[in-house]
């Protein structure tokens, strides 16, 4: 490999669903970090812009014997057959060869929303409105992330701006590879329950790689073959069963609905 370019990483995440309490701190931290504007008055859960969204999931029975899990859903950074990349007509979506992060460039996007129909995780949001900030609040924008304009799609990129800064810091010291501690996404940093672990899956010794390899860890919709780099973990069987969408579960789901 070219010595000029840094060693290739595969950034990924493991989210512990037994720790998550659905407090929503990650969602706010994410929106603040990425200069996502507050909702328009008529915005709804279906038209809002959330790079990261926490869903509630019940085990079915609706007596007090029921169990609930809160599931933070962000771009799963699919590592294979990434559904959104192939469909974009003008290369606004790509997977970064050195980090494995699926990137989205709003300035290239023409807003056809084909990628949104392609994403099974509903991890993409469209800018249905022009972005608006209350007077004065635009002064509190994060200088490392450019705000998006109306009519384009946006999504999680593992706080890539933070990776930029980590790399710049390393470069100043003449290094190409960053210190893992210098690159932590906003959601991971903010989680009060410390439910999220982030790092390089290629680095077998990293916490995230170990957690991802652990028995209790799993992916959502693994059978689609998109190999998400966002893993989840739980000791509760019913969650793992639902996440691994099988023919059987899909039928019972339908019954349930």
């Amino acid at each position: 490999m070219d010595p000029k370019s840094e060693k290739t990483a595969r950034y990924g995440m493991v989210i512990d669903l037994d720790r998550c309490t659905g407090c929503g701190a990650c969602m706010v931290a994410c929106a603040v970090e990425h200069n996502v504007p507050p909702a328009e008055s008529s915005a709804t859960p279906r038209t809002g812009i959330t790079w990261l969204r926490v869903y509630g999931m019940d085990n079915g029975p609706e007596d007090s014997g029921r169990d609930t899990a809160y599931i933070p859903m962000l771009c799963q950074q699919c590592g294979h057959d990434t559904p959104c990349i192939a469909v974009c007509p003008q290369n606004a979506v790509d997977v970064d060869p050195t980090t494995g992060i699926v990137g989205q460039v709003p300035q290239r996007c023409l807003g056809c929303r084909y990628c949104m129909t392609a994403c099974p995780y509903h991890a993409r949001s469209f800018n249905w409105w022009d972005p608006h900030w209350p007077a004065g609040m635009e002064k509190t924008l994060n200088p490392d992330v450019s705000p998006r304009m109306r009519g384009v799609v946006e999504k999680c990129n593992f706080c890539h701006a933070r990776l930029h800064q980590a790399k710049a810091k390393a470069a100043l010291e003449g290094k190409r590879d960053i210190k893992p501690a210098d690159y932590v996404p906003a959601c991971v940093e903010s989680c009060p329950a410390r439910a999220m672990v982030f790092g390089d899956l290629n680095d077998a010794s990293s916490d995230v790689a170990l957690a991802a390899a652990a028995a209790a860890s799993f992916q959502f919709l693994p059978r689609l073959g998109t190999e998400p780099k966002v893993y989840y973990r739980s000791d509760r069987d019913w969650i793992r069963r639902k996440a691994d969408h099988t023919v059987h579960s899909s039928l019972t789901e339908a019954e349930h609905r």
Partner: protein
Amino acid sequence: MDKELIPRGVRRTTPGRFLLWLLPWIALLGFGLYGAYLCLAEGLNQTNMDNRFAFGLWIYLDLTVIALGAGAFFTGFLLYIMRREELRAVINSAVVIGLICYSGAVAVLMVDVGQPLRAWFTFWHPNVHSMLTEVTFCLTCYLTVLIIEYAPVVFKNRKLRQVPRFLVFEFELHKLMPVLAGIGTLLSFFHQGSLGGLYGVLRGRPFAFREELGIWPTTFFLFILSAAAAGPSFVLITTWLVQKITRKQLVRPEVFRFLGKVSGILLLGYVLLKTVDTFIWINATSPSIGFAAYSFYRSSSFGTWILFAEIVALGLFPALALISKRMCERPGILVAAAMMACCGVMLNRYVMTVQTLALPTLPFDQFLSYAPSWQEVATFLAVLAYGMLLYSLSFRYMTLFPQERELSRFPGR
């Protein structure tokens, strides 16, 4: 002035009545353009689409009109390549319909995308793997072809013929027609197909995802076939409608029957392949990614009846009707069958667009519904009105049906 423009030997209503006919369509066009303006000026919050229903009425109707507009390329193909001369009677009309459908679809797409000013990026930074790139390229190219094909029809106009250069040009173009028809066929083949591929490649949408033949999912070929089948039927219907509205006989009955037969044969082929594909999908494709095909039909009003309607009621039945000689003797049945064929294809496009998006993928998702906003409807009505206007003008001032003149001289032949 108006008189001099009307082709020789045919009778057309008075300018006054013609204007009266145009007025409502002009009004509708105005209303529709206002809706489109709102979407462009205020942004797509004017629509009822959302992050889950990222495609809505517009995409569905684009697919539909392009399927119905396939008449243009397929008639051209049969006439110029397969040398089926009887189709010369409707080729001009078919071309106009194609032009309307395609230009309309492109116009709506320009409103549908969030950043129309960046549309040209697709040509400058194309992603060759994207079905949508294929669609964009073929659509624009084919639209140009249609315009060139439409040109001679215009130049044939009585007044324009007086300019000698135009006459020469028109003559030259005519020699070009077979080539254009060939190119048109090729282009249409690809964009009709890639419109189908659009959904077939959606690995993340188990309802739409299909196995691949070569580099294309099966929907690619099914869309081509269904469009080719629906096209002639639509030409048949429109011609019949024009006859009814103008109370004139424009083409000989055998033309209708031929169109019907062509449509029927293709439709039968489509139905067979669709059935095979559906079985593969139910038993292999969809289970392989963890979804039981039946679950798609349990979660809502989209019951299995849709499959039946799409394949049998609006597929097999009209196909058989169109093929059988005895039935096609009766124009009523012929037209009805053609309509059913078109409805079947429209239903297919509807299911592919709407049901695909309405169905949940994640275990905690809900089945979603969507109803277009008036701005969305209006924008599409604008296309309808524009089509009506363009067709009416073409019919009045150009020769869309060459047989009309003699038929009007010896009616009932």
